[in-house]
């Protein structure tokens, strides 16, 4: 969703003005059937809608009386005491809007509900079917009025933003004139731009971009203070400069203001969400129960995907417990997740949770609900087998073996390296279970990191050693990062490290140091209370087998340990 514009699609926007108000009114009227005779018309009767004690919408009559959106309940009631006060309910708004979507569905396919009250679809096909865009708009309005009884507004333009702005006025903007249509609009029109939270596929965050809250009001305010008063002003700015100065979100707004639309991510977004969920009648307490539940659920998802010719490359498994806690985990897959893969992942996730609760973790209650949500879908054609030779055959063979190993011994049985970055050698590369999400890489710089060659053995638990000078006194690193005396002997203090024994360094014995480097000081997080100061130094000692053995020693809080062994 960066500032890569594609030729804008001819788009129809259908909006129902003041939809939350209408939905709340509808609910109110259905609840009080005896008052149904007293029909309330929001245009003439004062109605205000509250969400968390603030007015979010006010009918025309209420606005005239002085109750404005943003007021507190008390102020609004004082301004317009005779108004009917309704509470907002997003659930019913969405469910009621399905009626409108269904009505539009009778005219055209591919309806995309952006949020309750607004839906978009492609105009080209339906318009050709109906004869013209005017005819399409008319048919849509008729269908909605006939099937639901509400008044909608339809706008048609190139790109979603122009269509959205055109729809309350019922305009049809001619092809390739969206930029001209948008230009005179005030910059505050950006508030209705289809970006940021609350937009998109039924309120789900985008799968490709981590959702950061874009505050449209703040952005508009900033642009106004910079002297940008119309969409035309914004569109006139060079797009690279906008992206540099304001970041990707405002770059998307800029793109929309120019009448283009952001290129959709390469992943496939189905118009209907694909997901499989099950509510467990008997809550889950044992691992083998999970396997029984997992298979039909995975098969259901697989059938749905096969019907649509898709494969799932990223899957989120959500398990809800009695206590209302949700544990979710995202699984990534380079090929396609098969039924067996999904079953295994459900089982591991439940397994881990059950084990944790048995080991005395925080009590959460049994699992009552499991849901599978594909986050990334791709057309199945891309994972077809190779044409020439054996490309990918080795990878397939290996993945079958790894899947089997993980099925036998749990997800930790096969791990893959992920470069995460860090100061110490053991932190630089992390091992994560095969096919699980890899941790993000922490970009350096990492001052004090070791130049090549690095030790082939890196201890996860550092075996303590003592360095002594020629007189048998311990060698320490001074505050200035220097050695108190040149080390002459290395003494392995703790017993039982197999790797050390093999290298000829036995516990309890002292070995002569042949040569040593200068200590490198590592100031880790010196600005934070958890910071530590350490120093590392390379040494070559003569081991028990009379061979030269190179080690990497690490000094921490005055005592030495071995970080690595060049074996």
């Amino acid at each position, binding site marked *: 969703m960066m500032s890569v514009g594609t030729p804008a699609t001819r788009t129809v926007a259908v909006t129902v003005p003041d939809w939350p108000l209408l939905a709340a009114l509808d609910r109110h009227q259905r609840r009080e059937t005896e008052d149904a005779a007293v029909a309330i018309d929001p245009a003439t009767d004062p109605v205000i809608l509250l969400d968390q004690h603030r007015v979010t919408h006010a009918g025309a009559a209420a606005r005239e009386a002085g109750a404005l959106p943003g007021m507190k309940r008390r102020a609004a009631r004082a301004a317009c005491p005779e108004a009917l006060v309704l509470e907002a309910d997003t659930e019913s708004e969405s469910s009621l809007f399905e009626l409108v979507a269904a009505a539009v569905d009778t005219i055209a396919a591919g309806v995309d509900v952006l949020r309750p009250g607004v839906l978009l679809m492609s105009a080209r096909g339906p318009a050709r079917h109906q004869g013209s865009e005017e005819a399409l708009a008319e048919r849509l309005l008729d269908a909605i009025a006939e099937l639901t009884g509400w008044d909608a507004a339809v706008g048609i333009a190139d790109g979603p933003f122009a269509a959205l702005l055109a729809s309350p006025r019922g305009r049809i903007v001619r092809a390739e004139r969206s930029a001209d249509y948008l230009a005179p609009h005030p910059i505050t029109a950006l508030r209705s731009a289809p970006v940021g939270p609350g937009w998109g596929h039924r309120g789900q965050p985008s799968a490709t971009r981590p959702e950061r809250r874009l505050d449209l009001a703040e952005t508009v305010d900033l642009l106004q203070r910079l002297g940008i008063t119309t969409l035309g002003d914004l569109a006139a700015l060079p797009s690279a400069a906008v992206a540099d100065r304001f970041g990707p979100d405002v770059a998307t707004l800029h793109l929309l203001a120019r009448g283009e639309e952001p290129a959709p991510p390469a992943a496939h977004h189905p118009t209907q969400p694909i997901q499989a969920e099950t509510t467990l009648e008997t809550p889950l307490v044992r691992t083998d129960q999970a396997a029984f539940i997992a298979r039909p659920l995975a098969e259901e998802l697989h059938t749905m995907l096969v019907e649509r010719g898709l494969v799932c490359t990223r899957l989120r498994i959500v398990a809800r417990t009695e206590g209302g806690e949700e544990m979710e985990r995202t699984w990534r897959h380079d090929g396609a997740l098969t039924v067996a893969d999904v079953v295994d992942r459900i089982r591991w996730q439940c397994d881990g949770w059950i084990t944790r609760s048995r080991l005395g973790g925080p009590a959460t209650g049994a699992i009552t609900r499991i849901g599978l949500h594909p986050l990334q879908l791709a057309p199945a054609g891309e994972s077809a087998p190779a044409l020439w*030779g054996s490309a990918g055959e080795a*990878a397939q063979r290996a993945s079958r073996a790894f899947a*089997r190993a993980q099925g036998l011994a749990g997800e930790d049985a096969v791990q893959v390296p992920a470069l995460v970055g860090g100061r110490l050698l053991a932190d630089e590369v992390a091992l994560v279970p095969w096919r699980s999400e890899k941790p993000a890489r922490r970009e350096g710089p990492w001052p004090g990191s070791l130049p090549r*060659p690095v030790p082939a053995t890196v201890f996860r638990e550092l075996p303590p050693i003592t360095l002594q000078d020629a007189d048998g006194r311990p060698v320490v690193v001074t505050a200035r990062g220097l050695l108190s005396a040149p080390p002459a002997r290395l003494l392995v203090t703790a017993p039982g490290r197999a790797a050390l024994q093999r290298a000829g360094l036995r516990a309890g014995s002292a070995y002569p140091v042949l040569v040593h*480097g200068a200590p490198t000081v590592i100031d880790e997080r010196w600005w934070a209370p958890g910071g530590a100061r350490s120093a590392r130094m390379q040494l070559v000692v003569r081991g028990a087998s009379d061979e*030269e053995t190179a080690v990497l020693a690490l000094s921490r809080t005055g005592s030495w340990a071995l970080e690595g062994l*060049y074996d």
Partner: protein
Amino acid sequence: MGMNLQMATRETVHTDHPDRDDRLARARATLGAAERSAARWGGRIDRTALRTVGEGEHQDPSDDGLGTRLSVPGPLSELFPRGSLRAGSSVAIEGAASTSVLLSLAVAAAGEDSWCALAGMPDLGLRSALDAGLDPCRLAHAPTHGEQRPQVLSALADGVGVLVLGPDLDLAPALWRSLLGRARTADTLVLAATPPGRADITLRSTTRSWAGLGAGSGRLRTRRLAVSATGRGIAGNREVEVLLPQVGGMIASSSSARDASSEVRLLQPVRKAG
């Protein structure tokens, strides 16, 4: 498949178009290689690798009726019969630099396509494995503790191209034999540090000297290592001296390193394109 094509080539030498089948075979091989690299890098140009001149057009250890041969690191090739390893064979590694030798053998044998699994190396320095040239996209690590260990190891022996068994594994001799049997059927190369039983070839390494470190100055740069081999197909005892690690963390022959210091090495850019 390669063997069939070659045999077909030999048979058609007497026909009218002697080089047609040959050209077809070469075209197929080229397309296969192109597709393999595209599959590995997701069809994108993913990295630009530098290779020294002459290394790129190495002799493909081809099929000679003795099964698939896997390449070995150049500096160590004198140790092995025919300068390569048979797929499905086993190598035991003993001595001071066992981890480094294991890694460098695994890198060469995994080549461009095979997967590599490491088992029983809890304290392996992963950065040194990557520095040695292992592809992190084709590398798996199996901690292998717990009661399912034999099954997990057998599954790995069936699936990967190179199975590396670390020194901390403490295998039972029966499991070692059954793993070798499985690996022989699946054409998996088994590299093991101090195995409990016989292996086809045994390498033993001895550190000669470390270079680069002074008295309170410098840093470790290279290790001179003597590697000797005994085993099947090797008469007596062969020994070579190599630099492992050299300054980049890889393996180099100790004589070529001396040459390299005197003359400028040419680098040939090789672009990994999809």
